[in-house]
């Protein structure tokens, strides 16, 4: 462990340091609201380190930069891209929980510290290239999330957390079983070595992946990861957990946890199981999961009366759109733009993060005031809170995929990658689903703008929440009108998967 290694790990180390420092400060600072603010401002440190690493290390693939801790973690632009995403998401979660934490009485600091620990686990997930490390960082990200889901300590919150823990435990066990088979039949847990061994095995055998046991392992991996990204048919936990959890945790789950899941899927499947060298194509499996997730997510969302549950099903549907990008492996048809699919997924994840966080920020601002998440209680919001209603409407338009929002550009990019890879049928399914989704997103907008309000009392929110709503809404607009900067960053990050 040299000083250089410490520099490579500095974003994660400073995140853990920040969370621990907040917990210690909590012991002797009387004004607890100060600590949360300090925590959000303190995120500048890991952000600064990540920016420094992006410009100094990002392009340099020299051996001393790529392997930390016996080569289990790498620092490349792909990992750094996700570090930006997780730091941004946890910062917004900190801002929007400013009023919400009052409900936790004594445990306000622990709430944000757990979110920081979870974000650290996600940052490690994006950086890992080894299966054991992958499992440890996955649990580091999900165990704090379970504790956060139970944070309200009432019946609903505990029930959601219990379902999260049990189904999360089952999916972890399935994932581990898959990893163990991949390890057992290749003799290594390093992803690049796995790819090399599978190449050798496939050359000497006409069985998929060289042996049926390995095929079983990979099927189990897909099931385990599918849980993390709420792909149908592994989505059953999501609506209950999203509804029962404190709303800032729901926002964090739907944005950051999902992005982390896609980060490891991209890394594992592009590095360990590159399509052109294998006799069977996993992208067909992801195409099927994509079609199922989009259709089920959107159809069930129509029937929802609770905004958190509606956004939960919308998250499942967006997981489907993201899987379209994952299934779009250009190598299938010999397309020349190999990184079209992965960079589309990265762009979509960033765009989805801003638009979903914008929607959740408004939902929290409103529920702080009216203490309800029922859609019917949003009646006449346009009169009671014109700016919040406009921001929510804009975020929902973006989730539908209507220009000039980031949701439109992201969908164009992902569907374009699918056409490029010869998956026209999947694009047709995706576009039909976008039309279905317009129905339930617009019905929320209709309730806000056309129904008469239940009371005339205006809804006022504090500065941090207004800041979060403002920043994310501007993000939705800017990335939608001028996406080229984010696109270039996503392309540079996706390129790291192919080096």
């Amino acid at each position, binding site marked *: 462990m040299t000083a250089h290694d410490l520099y490579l790990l500095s974003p994660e180390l400073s995140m853990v340091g920040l969370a621990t420092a907040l917990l210690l400060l909590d012991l002797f600072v009387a004004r607890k609201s100060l600590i949360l603010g300090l925590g959000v401002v303190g995120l500048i440190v890991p952000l600064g380190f990540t920016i420094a690493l992006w410009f100094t290390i990002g392009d340099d693939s020299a051996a001393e930069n790529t392997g930390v801790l016996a080569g289990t973690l790498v620092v490349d632009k792909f990992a750094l891209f996700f570090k930006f995403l997780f730091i941004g998401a946890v910062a917004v979660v900190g801002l929007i929980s400013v009023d919400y934490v009052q409900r936790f009485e004594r445990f306000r600091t622990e709430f944000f510290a757990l979110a920081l620990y979870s974000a650290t686990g996600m940052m490690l997930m994006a950086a890992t290239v080894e299966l054991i490390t992958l499992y440890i960082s996955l649990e580091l990200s999900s165990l704090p999330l379970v504790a956060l889901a139970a944070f309200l300590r009432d019946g609903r919150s505990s029930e959601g957390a219990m379902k999260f823990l049990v189904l999360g*435990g089952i999916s*972890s066990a*399935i994932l*581990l079983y898959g990893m163990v088979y991949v390890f*057992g039949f290749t*003799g290594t847990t390093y992803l690049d070595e796995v790819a090399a061994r599978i190449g050798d095995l496939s050359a000497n055998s006409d069985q998929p992946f060289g042996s049926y046991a390995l095929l079983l392992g990979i099927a189990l991996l897909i099931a385990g990861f599918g849980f993390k990204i709420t792909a149908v048919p592994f989505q059953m936990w999501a609506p209950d957990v999203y509804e*029962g959890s404190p709303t800032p945790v729901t926002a964090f789950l739907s944005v950051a946890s999902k992005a982390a899941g896609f980060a490891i899927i991209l890394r594992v499947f592009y590095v360990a199981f590159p399509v052109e060298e294998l006799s069977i194509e996993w992208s067909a499996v992801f195409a099927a999961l994509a079609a199922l997730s989009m259709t089920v997510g959107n159809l069930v969302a129509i029937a929802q009366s609770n905004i958190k549950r509606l956004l939960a099903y919308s998250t499942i549907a967006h997981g489907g759109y993201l899987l379209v990008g994952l299934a779009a492996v250009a190598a299938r048809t010999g397309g020349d733009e190999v990184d079209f699919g992965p960079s589309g997924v990265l762009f979509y994840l960033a765009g989805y993060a801003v638009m979903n966080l914008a929607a959740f920020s408004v939902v929290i601002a409103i529920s702080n005031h009216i203490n309800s998440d029922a859609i019917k209680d949003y009646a006449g919001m346009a009169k009671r809170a014109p700016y919040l209603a406009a921001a929510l409407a804009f975020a929902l338009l973006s989730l539908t995929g209507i220009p000039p929002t980031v949701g439109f550009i992201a969908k164009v990019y992902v569907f374009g990658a699918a056409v490029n890879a010869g998956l026209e049928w999947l694009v047709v399914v995706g576009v039909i689903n976008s039309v279905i989704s317009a129905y339930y997103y617009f019905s929320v907008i209709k309730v806000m703008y056309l129904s008469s309000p239940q009371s005339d009392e205006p809804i006022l929110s504090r500065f941090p929440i207004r800041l979060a709503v403002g920043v994310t809404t501007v993000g939705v607009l800017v990335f939608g009108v001028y996406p080229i900067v984010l696109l270039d960053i996503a392309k540079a990050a996706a390129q790291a998967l192919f080096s």
Partner: protein
Amino acid sequence: MSLENFLILGAILFAIGLYGALSKRNAIAVLMSIELMFNAVNITAVALSRYVVPASLLGDAASITDQAARTLLTGQIFSIFIITVAAAEIALGVAIVIALYRSRETVFVTDATQLKN
């Protein structure tokens, strides 16, 4: 003993654990079933790391190469990590069961039905 015996044992334990986790009413029994699944994975990991070291790597027993030793140990290290994380997971699980019991006076997962469409 051959590798198949261990893999079959692992698969049977995994299936029993999965069945228990999906069918038991008592939350504690569900957590125990999940633990059983983890241990099935452990057995498989250790057995695979013992038996599936490519013969070319092993050579004669006196001169085990670095790479063979690494393969031999990886499965065992994997299982130690699994045991550690599973312990953390169960601690969290029991805490949530207690929270559930305090608010609902039950440890039966079939009674936790407040969240529905």
